[in-house]
């Protein structure tokens, strides 16, 4: 069946998953449902302790068995030790057929490939996968289907009961013996625990894993003891050097600075750029540079931001520091400055659900004026791909891309026209992760394309001196320089699905096939 972004979704996949093909961003608007609920084991006896000796013991206490679904968060990014630590023990116990439902998986989890190959892990649900796991999935090594879902989509899947997490493991920088978790105060600070909040609310068993046990009460708790079954203390939950690095030095790459300047000029010329606007941006060089130049214009024009959202970095926290924004709403911290900024009373932690869940009664992304995003590929229908590389291998993550793009009034994607020899603007993206209806503007080093659906933005830019082009023109320039690449060759086997944030199927990812020349 062809879905709303023109992708062929095999009937068999719809049957296996029980899903509908993607039918447009607002297809489920107003949809009513009953939320799922976890089973809870009451703790009334005041003599009880939640401390458990080690990972093995806690797995036994949680009743680990074949076929279970385990939840993990990715606040420790490439420095995470928790996923591997737990999975190694499960592997040693001979447990099989595990589904990992993580907010994201990255290079820190390359080790899981061994467990995929031996059947310990048979299903993966994640925002995306980088590193060796991505290759393993693309090569068809995962027994089940990989499900790539956005941060908001993961909360939706858990709340609706589409996914039931049997045991959630929450790596916690500090924790007391009764399970009060905080994202700061230890040796592996990550600032916030936003992605794991839904796990704490909905998993049947919740295990806090910490390397910094603190006296009770570890208040104010980011995840409350009322939701935690067990606490395990280990030597290290992560590598602090890789969890939050020092703030990235502002880029000096003129290509990125140029795109940042285009972005800033575009933003300030839209009707949304006025006192009280809201804004989210990413961690790329151009996004960061754009935030810096935007702050200068805000100062010059005496314009304040009402709130900033993220995925936060130093330049966003500087806005708070310099009193240019009323509040920061934080789901993740990308550098030490962002982690340290968390103590500011106007820097608020929010859950992934508050941030982006399309199936609650309204998420923060719906209130965004601007979001600045990146993409691996954008096609002439403005569809974006942020998960599958142009070589067909899964190599990225959706994160909040589809959520913020759908919610914001002005969604801007910054992408250099060419990624090495690969055109980033193309006729058809390898895989659709964010539908073109969510994307308003594409900014490249060669020019800017406004989505024709946004005539209002086109009109607003009438007298603005920026290099505007159509998206087709941008594609043609890219192809004129590097040629039109031959399409990646895939096997028929579907190895993963790209889930729309509402749970529909946006696209499928097929098994990679060894490239064969067309032999003419």
């Amino acid at each position, binding site marked *: 069946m062809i879905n709303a972004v023109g992708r062929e979704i095999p009937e068999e996949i719809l049957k296996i998953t029980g899903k509908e093909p993607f039918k447009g961003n607002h297809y489920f608007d107003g949809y009513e449902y009953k939320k799922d609920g976890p089973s809870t084991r009451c703790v009334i006896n005041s003599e009880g302790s939640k401390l458990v000796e080690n990972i093995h013991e806690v797995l036994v206490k949680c009743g680990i068995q074949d076929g279970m679904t385990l939840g993990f968060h990715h606040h420790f990014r490439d420095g995470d030790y928790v996923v591997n630590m737990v999975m190694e023990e499960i592997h040693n116990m001979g447990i099989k057929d595990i589904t990992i439902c993580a907010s994201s998986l990255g290079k820190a989890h390359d080790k899981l490939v061994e467990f995929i190959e031996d059947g310990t892990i048979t299903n993966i649900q994640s925002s995306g996968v980088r590193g060796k796991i991505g290759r393993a999935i693309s090569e068809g090594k995962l027994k089940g289907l990989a499900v790539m879902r956005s941060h908001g989509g993961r909360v939706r899947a858990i709340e609706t009961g589409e996914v039931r997490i049997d045991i959630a493991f929450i790596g916690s920088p500090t924790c007391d013996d009764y399970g009060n978790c905080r994202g700061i105060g230890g040796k592996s600070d990550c600032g916030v625990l936003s992605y794991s909040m839904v796990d704490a609310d909905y998993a049947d068993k919740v295990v806090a894993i910490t390397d910094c046990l603190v006296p009770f009460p570890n208040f104010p708790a980011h995840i409350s003891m009322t939701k935690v079954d067990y606490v395990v203390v280990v030597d290290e939950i992560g590598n602090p050097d890789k969890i939050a690095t020092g703030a990235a030095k502002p880029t*000096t790459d*003129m*290509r990125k*600075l*140029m795109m940042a300047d285009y972005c800033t000029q575009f933003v300030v010329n839209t009707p949304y750029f006025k006192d009280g606007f809201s804004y989210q941006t990413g961690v790329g060089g151009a996004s960061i540079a754009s935030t810096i130049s935007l702050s200068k214009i805000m100062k010059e024009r005496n314009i304040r931001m009402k709130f900033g959202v993220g995925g936060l970095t130093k330049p966003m926290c500087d806005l708070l520091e310099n009193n240019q924004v009323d509040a920061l709403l934080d789901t993740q911290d990308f550098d030490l400055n962002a982690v340290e900024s968390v103590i500011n009373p106007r820097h608020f932690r929010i859950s992934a659900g508050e941030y982006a869940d399309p199936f609650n009664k309204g998420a923060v992304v719906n209130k965004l004026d601007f979001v600045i995003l990146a993409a691996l590929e954008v096609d002439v229908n403005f569809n974006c791909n942020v998960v599958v590389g142009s070589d067909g291998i899964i190599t990225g993550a959706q994160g909040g891309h589809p959520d913020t793009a759908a919610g914001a009034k002005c969604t801007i994607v910054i992408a250099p026209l*060419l990624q090495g020899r690969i055109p980033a603007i193309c006729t058809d993206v390898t895989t659709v992760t964010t539908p073109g209806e969510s994307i308003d503007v594409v900014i490249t*080093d*060669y020019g800017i394309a406004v989505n024709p659906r946004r005539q209002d933005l086109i009109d607003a830019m009438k007298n603005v001196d920026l290099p505007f082009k159509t998206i087709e023109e941008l594609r043609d320039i890219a192809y*004129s*320089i590097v040629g039109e690449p031959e399409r990646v060759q895939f096997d028929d086997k579907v190895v993963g699905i790209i889930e729309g944030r509402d749970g529909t199927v946006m696209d499928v990812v097929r098994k990679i096939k060894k490239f064969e020349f067309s032999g003419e």
Partner: protein
Amino acid sequence: MINLVKKRLRRTMMFLNAQKPGLIKDPYIYRPDSIILDLEDAVAENQKDAARFSLYHALKEIDYRGCERVVRINGLDTPYWQEDIRCAVAGGCDAIRIPKVECPKDVHRVEEEILKAEKDFGMPEGMILIMAAIESARGVMKALDICEASDRLFGIALSGGDYTKDLQTRITGTGIELMGARQNLIIAARAAKVQCFDTVYTNLDDMEGFQRDVETIHLMGFDGKSIVNPRQIPIVHDIFTPSGKDIIFAEKVVREIEEKKEMGIGVFTVDGKMIDIAFYDGARRTIELAKASGVYKGDL
């Protein structure tokens, strides 16, 4: 033959290592007026042939979208320069930059070689221009003769690194060590009615120093500056492009002079400033520069 592009706008001439595909594939996106594809200092001694190969294919294949393509050849004291010229001409470059020029004969030797290559490759004769880099005290003293050495020569450029070595001083960032050469070159270039370009500023961490440097050479009368990084382009263009205020004033001066001339009035005031015919050429130049820079929207 009069080559009209001799006088084109050259506020920025950006050096790029001809051997680096990542650099030479699309420098036009930064909108420099000219690029200088370098076969000389940026290229290691044992890579000269590889750089020529890359240069030839870049010139042949890449559409530089109106950006002038100058090739810096190796010095005339090396075994490379003749082949450099053949390669650049065969590729279809717009101009050759000769390093370390000290006398008109250096220009003549290159001119002969270009002509030979144009004939060999069936190119129209005389289209490829020349610019001469002055890198020594002798070159500075011979500047006027060099400027007048060839019809193909569109300008001269100061190359500060070698020049200061020859002067037994160093680049200080203040410009003191370059004062004499800059003054001498701009006077010689103006006397010969060719263009004059200033040396590179290599400290990319000091953009304020760069800005001061550009402001200085702009006031001295230079036509532009050699640059080493695209980040320097907006600063140079900003300084060398007439402001809206300058353009409006220049328009008023041109119109008033033309009007008053017919009325037989020689001296009058514009915006409180005393104006006479002597201001006419300067005002015209401002408008021409504004046009060439793409910022002029009037009808003069």
